[in-house]
């Protein structure tokens, strides 16, 4: 249960918002759930709804709306490659396709060992340093810019060493 394990952190999150507006804490709490479980489970939604005195649908709806929240575990490390226009003009689509080929998966799929998932995503505000991607993992999101296949495979190798989680 989040409430027991992260008692203090939850209090810190709630303190940022007026007591009568604690619904504002829902995204930070969803991130907390994702950090704990690797994705946002139905149980986590129920728990957050209870904490904030909301209906579970008011919490669950957010998971579908916001792209960084995940209903399913997927790979531990989500390689999210921007292939939007400015990045595409700098070869991001070819880069993304090649990376998938190297890993033997399609966009949205996870490698057999469950560690690496590759997704095409929308603009990440790194247009001048394309090809670029971010890695979303349970503990956070990190940027990798000015990439080529070799450097990206190096990043992936390091992530695989750290292994599967959740």
């Amino acid at each position, binding site marked *: 249960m989040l409430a027991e394990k992260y008692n203090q952190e939850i209090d810190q999150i709630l303190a*940022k918002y*007026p007591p009568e*507006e604690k*619904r*504002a*804490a*829902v*995204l*930070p709490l*969803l*991130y907390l759930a994702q950090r704990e479980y690797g994705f946002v489970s139905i149980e986590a939604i129920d728990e957050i709804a209870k904490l*904030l005195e*909301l209906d579970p649908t*008011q919490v669950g*709806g*957010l998971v579908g*709306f*916001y*792209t*960084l*929240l995940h209903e399913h575990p997927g790979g531990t490390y989500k390689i999210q490659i921007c292939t*939007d*226009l*400015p990045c*595409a*003009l*700098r070869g991001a689509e070819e880069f993304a396709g090649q990376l998938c080929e190297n890993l033997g998966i399609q966009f949205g799929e996870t490698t057999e060992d469950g560690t690496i998932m590759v997704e095409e995503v*929308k*603009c*990440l*505000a*790194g*247009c*001048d*340093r*394309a090809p670029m991607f*971010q890695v979303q993992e349970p503990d*956070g*999101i*990190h*940027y990798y810019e000015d990439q080529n296949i070799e450097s990206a495979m190096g990043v992936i190798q390091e992530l695989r060493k750290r292994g599967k989680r959740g």
Partner: protein
Amino acid sequence: MAEYILLRNRDIPAIDKLDVYLEHGGFAAFKQVVTEKQPQEVIEIVKVSGLRGRGGAGFPAGVKWSFLTPNVFPRYVVANADESEPGTFKDREILERNPFQFLEGVAICSFAAQANTAYVYCRGEFWDLAQTLEQKIAELYERGFLGENIFGSNYKLDIFVHLGAGAYICGEETALLESLEGKLGQPRLRPPFPAAEGLFAKPTVVNNVETLTNLPPIITRGADWFASIGTERSTGPKIFCLSGRIVRPGNYELPLGTTFRELIFEHGGGIPDGKSIKGIMPAGASSAILPGTDEVLDTPMDYESVAKIGSQLGSASLIILDETINLGWLAYKTTSFFKHESCGKCTPCREGTYWMYHILSRVKEGQGSPEDVELLREVAQGMEGKCLCALGEFAIMPVLTSIERFQLDYEALTGKNGS
């Protein structure tokens, strides 16, 4: 420019350290307003400076603040750090490299708005950046620049970082407020505007990161100094983001009114591989596309001049297109973005972006007909002026202008004229 005003990190690389920022005059402006000025005086200074919102709309900042409903408290200030427009990456450099000038700007704006709480709404992808920003804010509390009794006055200010979770629409200020309140990031019907009923239904100022970062120098050097930079109606420095087919992509801080030619060819180094320039998207993916003609290249990049030649300066995020780019493909790429990011609240945008995407998917593969292009135009025109927020209007701009201004590209794709 001789000296950086916003990207001071380019002159002083360690300015992201509080001591270094203080050595270079940091927090003198905030101290000055808190100890010597009334909130109304600060609003007047910003009005006189002519500072216009740097997020895209270009609305005068001081005027926006003066719309706050009088005598209603608490009030809030929200910094819009949701930077998500394809082609835009200026706020990121400010937040990463010159964070204290931005935070001082938030503090000055909060004082002027008589707000005791400010939120920095960062897009969720800026996770690492948000962590760093929270540390910087903690340092400000330690030094007494935030918290109770700031500079011995009775002014109190808290600044909190709030992370979004991946949604372009949250850059629209009312959608941002909904998201901050813990709801789906969908725009509100206006009026009421945020200055009357914003965050938690209280009077709220929402300003872009770059806008707020302009405030400390405006206070220390004066409104007249600021107004002397740029053009008469588009004052001050601006960060231009340069991306696409350009030799040196990146951020360039230049006075508003600098010509396209100077930015693209002098600073950006021109077009790679000896290609010629075909078009410019001056406002990221949301642009009316301009052809790369001499007339366009010699136009000054200020809000009025760019509007006059049939586009918008917006957030000044220039995506450069060379002669090899087919604009039908480009319209497919931008439409794919807007279809994904449409929040689904209003029908014209939700349905319109969906159908435009499907038509363009055919067209870009060479499987469309000239009638498809006509249909595309009709769908886009059907959305025009009917969407709840600017996203829908943004979505149709590259579509309509590519059809109108680059007709040959569609003819090449649809096989019209036997090509």
